[in-house]
């Protein structure tokens, strides 16, 4: 694939993710999505760039802010929206919801809503890959806020001691929920500055540049597959919406928001496409295809049947049931 074809593919994936999340937001306002939702708009390049660097059989673990990761690993916009809309066709049969999007068919093994909890899981998946001799890599995506929780420390240490093929990708968007990460972290780069404590190498990357992300993840994956151990990547990015749907994000300085909105990952990719000579028409076609895909997904999700109440009592155990007694 030529550079521009591959980039165009990534651009389209980002465009689809962006539109899907916008649709989710609008469906919220229309009362068709309930519960809580954490949009990743602004973070698309991290998911798409990383995915482009990975093999289909590599493992991905994400957080409650994980729509982009599910879709980057192949979950359809329709299944994601159906999940949010409590439809039986939802990615997790409407039992998980926005915070737990999972697409095991794409080895995207879950979105976890307890900050940091999935980091040891990714270490375990990498350990499993080593044990099975598959050269698979495991990637954990997490927020800047997750770098202060105990599980982060335990995961990084174990990964380093066992030299496991795991990549820790921090999406540093400068904020936890409403509190700036700088106010509660004794490090400038909450992830990268901690890597030396585990004799681990770290890369800081523009998380809004899909190519840059792809490169840095590709090289970490290569090292991992070669048995050279784990890497920390800190991707600098920004969320376009508030923390969750109820958050207007007034705690962020207007100037900061503006600066980051000007550095939109989709714009960055578009500029790169243009520099590679892709025509405005081609880009427009791509945008339109993305819009059409998401519009169709919305329509299909709306038309899908509501979650099946019987599903409340399935899937606890591997036999499919929920019996706790004999």
């Amino acid at each position: 694939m030529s550079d521009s074809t591959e980039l165009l593919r990534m651009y389209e994936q980002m465009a689809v993710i962006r539109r899907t999340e916008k649709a989710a937001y609008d469906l919220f306002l229309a009362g068709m999505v309930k519960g809580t939702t954490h949009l990743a708009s602004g973070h698309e390049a991290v998911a798409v760039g990383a995915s482009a660097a990975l093999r289909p059989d590599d493992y991905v673990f994400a957080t409650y802010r994980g729509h982009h990761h599910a879709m980057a690993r192949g979950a359809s916009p329709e299944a994601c929206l159906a999940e949010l809309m409590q439809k039986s066709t939802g990615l997790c049969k409407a039992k998980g919801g926005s915070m737990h999007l999972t697409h095991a068919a794409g080895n995207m093994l879950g979105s976890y809503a307890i900050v940091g909890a999935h980091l040891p899981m990714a270490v375990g998946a990498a350990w499993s890959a080593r044990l099975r001799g598959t050269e698979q890599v495991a990637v954990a995506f997490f927020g800047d806020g997750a770098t202060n929780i105990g599980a982060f420390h335990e995961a990084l240490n174990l990964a380093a001691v066992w030299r496991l093929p795991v990549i820790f990708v921090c999406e540093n968007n400068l904020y936890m929920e409403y509190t700036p990460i700088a106010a509660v972290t004794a490090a400038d780069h909450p992830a990268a500055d901690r890597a030396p404590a585990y004799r681990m190498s770290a890369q800081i990357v523009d998380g809004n540049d899909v190519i840059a992300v792809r490169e840095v993840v590709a090289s970490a994956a290569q090292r991992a597959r070669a048995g050279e151990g784990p890497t920390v990547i800190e991707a600098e990015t920004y969320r376009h919406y508030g923390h969750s749907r109820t958050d207007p994000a007034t705690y962020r300085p207007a100037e900061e928001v503006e600066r980051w909105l000007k550095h939109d990952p989709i714009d960055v990719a578009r500029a790169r496409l243009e520099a590679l000579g892709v025509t405005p028409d081609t880009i427009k076609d791509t945008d339109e295809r993305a819009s059409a895909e998401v519009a169709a997904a919305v329509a299909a999700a709306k038309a899908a049947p509501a979650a099946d109440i019987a599903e409340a009592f399935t899937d606890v155990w591997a036999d499919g049931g929920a019996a706790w007694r004999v």
Partner: protein
Amino acid sequence: MAGVKTDSGTITYREAVAEGIAREMRRDPTVICLGEDIGPAGGVFKTTAGLFEEFGPQRIWDTPISEQAIVGAAMGAAMTGIRPVAEIMFSDFLACCWDYLANEIPKVRYMTGGQVTVPLVIRTANGGGLGFGAQHSQAVENWALAIPGLKIVAPSTPADVIGLMASAIRSDDPVVFFEHKGLFASKGPRPPEGHHVELGRAAVVREGTDVTLLALASTVHTALAAADRLAEDGISAEVVDLRCLIPMDLTTVLASVAKTSRLVTVEENPYQAGWGATVVSVVVDEGFHLLDAPVRRVASANVPLPFADALENEVMPTADKVVAAVRSVANF
């Protein structure tokens, strides 16, 4: 912003949390709050709204996402002259600092032969029904009940929030204070200054003669709704709000069962290892002769909490389920 609102009339459960804390902070300068986003943001549930403005950063501390450090630091501070009020944002996250609740805080007084006390409050948003999914919806008051050495509070009304918060903060023992997410928007009379509800006193919130419905926090409202419906059938249900799990007011429960001869517990925690089981086991021991019928427990199903409303409703206790349980024992 003028700090915590103190006008009279009605108050929401959510406001009552901040108000209850503020009243104690005004009384006692050693009361200090810490937690994630509790400061300028006023908490994710706005249950600390106004505190930062009134008391400032020396008394309202925003923390990193470090549940162990929050609760562990609260413990260290409590041992050394401070009365910390630590927030764990969602009660599910108590699992992230469970060592402190299970092994450290409740045991240190005993294992040092009484040398240290740990006067602290751990507040947390508990319970489901809001579509937050399996990791943000649990009612985990029964986790705390498994640990001797913790006092456990779970109020059902704004007035009780304030009255029990006063007792919790003044208590020299560690208290886990469960605020129910589903009740935050509910309203009730604002209690007068100085209002105070002793820990370990259940309330008979509705008198009745045919069956005792024993409830806690959110399920008090479920039980009351069921009692209304049962009244239409001519069944007179007494509703007891347990208010605290520890101290457990079994005197009030046994007295109610003595009157009604029938007991149905209404619990939000899962059936397996729910608090109602412990109450029932005491009743069937000490009050066996009082009982005229099987004891039923309406509790959440033994499954993780699903996301979709309809599924969540299916697995959580509802007035319908309580009515059905009562009817099934009424004919004995």
